């Protein structure tokens, strides 16, 4: 089961998605993230993808949607620590032209 873990500190919201992101799981993840963004009104959203082993193009839709929502409320949006599988699909879609992608799965911290 996909889960999300959030940390809200100094107006920075870190959302860590845990599990596969596909069309089936995207809906629940999307609803949870949107709720938290609207509730906390952060100035920066960090989407931590280090615990996502599998992602398909439904994940691209999920990321682009959360990017748009963040921009709408005036928050910055970044992807952090994508695994190599996830990085390849982000690259394919040219996501890095739209938003910052920081770190890779080699610096697995927490």
């Amino acid at each position, binding site marked *: 089961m996909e889960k999300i873990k959030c940390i809200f500190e100094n107006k920075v919201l870190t959302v860590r998605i845990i599990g596969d992101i596909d*069309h089936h799981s*995207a809906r629940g993840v999307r609803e949870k993230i949107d709720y938290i963004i609207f509730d906390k009104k952060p100035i920066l959203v960090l989407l931590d993808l280090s615990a996502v082993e*599998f*992602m398909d193009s*439904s994940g691209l839709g999920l990321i682009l949607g959360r990017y748009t929502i963040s921009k709408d409320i005036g928050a910055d949006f970044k992807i952090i620590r994508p695994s190599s599988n996830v990085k390849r699909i982000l690259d394919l879609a040219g996501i890095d032209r739209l938003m910052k992608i920081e770190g890779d799965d080699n610096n697995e911290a927490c």
Partner: protein
Amino acid sequence: MRHAKNQMKLYLPSLSINEGLARNAVAMFIAQINPTIEEISDIKCAVSEAVTNSIVHGYKYSQGIVYIGVKYFSDRTIVIEIKDKGCGIENIEQAMTPLFTTDTSGERSGMGFAVMQTFMDKLDVISKIGSGVRVVMTKKLK
């Protein structure tokens, strides 16, 4: 005609919960010929795209069957066929254009076919309006 070394057929109801089952079943089957981690990841992604398309676009969340066939040959070529009997695609060329989507929820990226094309060696899409879509993908493993 060459003979497949091994093959698998899987018929699944068009429930989104089966997207994970479909890609993982194909991955386990392909694991018999020791693909690289990257190859497995590419194949899982391509299968997930085609199966999701059948469920979301083909059957539009109504009930139907998604047909999955996988074969591998002695030269390590893998052929994956994913088929539905849904609404079909009117203009295949347009559908395959990156970023093109008929979805109106704003949550689909229109990158499904681009993913299949990039992660597999060959992609064929065959469709007739009203009778469904057949996607055939080929990849030769190292």
